[in-house]
C-alpha cells in the first residue's frame, strides 16, 4: 500500500569535504561531514533533526535538496531513485523545497518579493501573470497582505516577515515535502512562535511533510512527530518524539536533553552533562564517535562502530550498550534475553 512506503528513504549518504592545503602545505585532510546516514520520512509527518554545530545537519539538508552531490548513497523519493530517469532532479525539485536559516541572504535583494516567489513557477513553465497571481495568493496565506508586501524589497521587511516570504516561496511549486533548515533559529522568540504556528497550519492545509532541522530541543519537541539525533555526521538515535524525549536511549541524547534549562528549581543539574569539546569532524574518534565524551565509555567503544539497533517499535539508537554481543559491560544483561 502507498501509505506503507515512506515518502523519502535515505540510504547510506556520505559526504566528505577535502580540505585544501594552503601555500605553506598545512591543512589537507578531509571533513567527514556526513558519514553514512540512513533514515526514512513518512508522508504527512514532521521529522525533527537535532544535533550540535558541526554534526552534519545542514550538510544533510543540502544533500537532500541535491544542492551538493553525495559521494556515496542514494535517496528514494516516492519509490523512485532521485536522479534516475524515473525521478529526474528537476521533477524532484517540484516535490521537495527548502527554507534556509538566513532569511535575508535567501532573498535576492534586487527582486521584489512577488518576483522572488514567482521565479520558481515560471521556471517550470507557468506564465508570468499566473505566477504573480500565485505569489500574491501565497503571500496572503502566510499572513502577509499582498497589497502591502508584494512589490517591496527584502531589506524593507523584518526577519519574521522575510521568513514568511521564504515559506511562501517554498510553497510556490506546491511541493509535498519541505526541509526547514534552522528556519526559525534567527528569529525573536515571539516571532518564532508565530512562524511555528503558521508552519503547522500550512502543513495541515497543504498535506505537507516536514524535515525540521534545529538545535533548539524545545522547538523540535513541539513540532516533530519523530526525531533524529545526529552526532559528527552519523545518526545516533531516531524514534518517536515522545518516546525519545521521555526515555532517551543514547547517552548523547540523554546529555542533550538534560542540558535543556528547566523552569523548575528542583531540577537543577549540578554537573555539566557533556564533558569536553565537540571533537573535530576532520579526525573523528575511532569506533563510536561519542566515546570521548561519554560517561559510560569503555575500551571496546573505541574499537567497534555501533549500529542502529531498535529497542522498540519506532525507536532505535546506535550504542554498544544496546548491542547484546558488543562486549560492553552494560550490554551483558541483554545476552540473557
Amino acid at each position, binding site marked *: 500500500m502507498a501509505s506503507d512506503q515512506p515518502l523519502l528513504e535515505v540510504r547510506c549518504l556520505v559526504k566528505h569535504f577535502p580540505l585544501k592545503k*594552503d*601555500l*605553506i*602545505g598545512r591543512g589537507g585532510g578531509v571533513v567527514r561531514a556526513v558519514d553514512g546516514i540512513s533514515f526514512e520520512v513518512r508522508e504527512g509527518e514532521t521529522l525533527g533533526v537535532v544535533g550540535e554545530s558541526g554534526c552534519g545537519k545542514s550538510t544533510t539538508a543540502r544533500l537532500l535538496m541535491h544542492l551538493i552531490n553525495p559521494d556515496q548513497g542514494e535517496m528514494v523519493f516516492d519509490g523512485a531513485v532521485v536522479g534516475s530517469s524515473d525521478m529526474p532532479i528537476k521533477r524532484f525539485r517540484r516535490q521537495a523545497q527548502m527554507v534556509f536559516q538566513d532569511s535575508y541572504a535567501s532573498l535576492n535583494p534586487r527582486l521584489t518579493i512577488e518576483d522572488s516567489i514567482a521565479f520558481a513557477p515560471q521556471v517550470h513553465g507557468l506564465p508570468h501573470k499566473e505566477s504573480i497571481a500565485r505569489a500574491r495568493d501565497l503571500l496572503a496565506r502566510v499572513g502577509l497582505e499582498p497589497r502591502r508586501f508584494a512589490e517591496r524589497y527584502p531589506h524593507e521587511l523584518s526577519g519574521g516577515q522575510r521568513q514568511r516570504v521564504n515559506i511562501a516561496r517554498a510553497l510556490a511549486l506546491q511541493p509535498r515535502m519541505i526541509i526547514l533548515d534552522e528556519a526559525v533559529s534567527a528569529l525573536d522568540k515571539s516571532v518564532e512562535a508565530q512562524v511555528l504556528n503558521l508552519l503547522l497550519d500550512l502543513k495541515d492545509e497543504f498535506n505537507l511533510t516536514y524535515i525540521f532541522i534545529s538545535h533548539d530541543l524545545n522547538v523540535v519537541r513541539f513540532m516533530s512527530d519523530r526525531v533524529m539525533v545526529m552526532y559528527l555526521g552519523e545518526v545516533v538515535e531516531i524514534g518517536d518524539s515522545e518516546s525519545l524525549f521521555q526515555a532517551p536511549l543514547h547517552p548523547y541524547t540523554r546529555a542533550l536533553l538534560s542540558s535543556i534549562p528547566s523552569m523548575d528549581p528542583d531540577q537543577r543539574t549540578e554537573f555539566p552533562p557533556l564533558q569536553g569539546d565537540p571533537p573535530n569532524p576532520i579526525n573523528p574518534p575511532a569506533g563510536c564517535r561519542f566515546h570521548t565524551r561519554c560517561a559510560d565509555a569503555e575500551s571496546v567503544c573505541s574499537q567497534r562502530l555501533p549500529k542502529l539497533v531498535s529497542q522498540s517499535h519506532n525507536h532505535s539508537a546506535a550504542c554498544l550498550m544496546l548491542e547484546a554481543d558488543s562486549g560492553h559491560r552494560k550490554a551483558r544483561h541483554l545476552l540473557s534475553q
Partner: protein
Amino acid sequence: MLFFLIRRVIYTLPIMLGVAMVCFALVHLAPGDPLVSILPADASQEMQEQMRKLYGFDRSYPEQFASWIWRALQGDLGTSIASSRSVSTEVMKAVGNTLRLAAMATLIGFIFGCLFGFVAGYFQNSWVDKAASLTAVLGVSVPHYWLGMVLVIVFSSILMWLPASGAGPGGSDVWAWNWEHIKHMLLPALTMSVIPMGIIARTVRALVAEILAQEFVVGLRAKGLTDLGVFLHVVKNSAPTALAVMGLQLGYLLGGSILIETVFAWPGTGFLLNSAIFQRDLPLLQGTILVLATFFVLLNLVVDVIQTLLDPRISRS
C-alpha cells in the same frame, strides 16, 4: 617559512612561462618582414637567406621560441638588429637608468602620498581632507606626459633652472649622484611621481579612515592611549598595505616609463622600447619586454612575500 617561499616561487613559474609566450607572440604578431630594417631592398636572395639563418627566422615558431627561452635563461637575449650590440647589455644598462628614475619617483610619490592620505584620513571630512583628496584626484587624472611637457615649459624654457632632457653629462653610460646628474633627474622623477602619489594618497586615506573608525580604536582611546599612541597604532596597521601599494606602483612605473622617458629623452628602457618599435628591431623588442615583465612579476612576488611576513593574519589563514 622557507617552504612557503619555495612554493610561492614555484607558483610564479607557469606565469613566467605564459609571460614569455605572450612576449614572443606579441612580437611575432607584427606584419611585415623583420629583415626589412637591416637589409637594403635590393639584397640578393642569397643574402636574405643568410641573414634569415643567422637570426633564426627560418625555423618554425615553436623552435624559435624554445631556443630563445633557452638562451634567455643563460643571459643571452640575442643581438639587436639595429645596433648589432648584445640585447642583454643594452637592456641592462637601460634598466639601470629607469630603475633610478622609477625608484626616485616612487619615493617622492610615497612620501607625499602618505602625507596627504594620512592628513585626509585623520581629519576626515574637514577642509583639509577635501583639499588633500582633491590633490589626489588631480594626481591620478593628470596625463603625465603632458605634465612633463608643462614642467619643461615652466622650469626649462621660462625659468631656465633645470635642463629639459637627457640624463646628464656622459649620456646614458655614466651616472653619479652629483648635482650635475641629479638636476636632469628632477623633472622626470617629479612628473612620474604624480600618479603614484595620487593612488597612494587615496589608499592611505581610506585605510586611515577605516582604522580610526573601528571600534577597538575607540576602546583604546577609552583606555587612555594618547594621541601619539593612536597615531603609531594607525601607522602600524596601515603600513603593510601602503608598502604593498608602493611596491606595485614601482612596478607600474618600471613598465610604464616609456611616455615620460620619451618626453625627457631619458635613456631608459622606455626609450629603448620606443626605438625598438619604430625600427622594428625584433630581438631588442622581445628582450626588453621580457626583462620588464619579469621585473614586474618578481616585484609582485617580493611584495606578496613581504606583505605575508608583515601581516600575521594572512600567514595564519
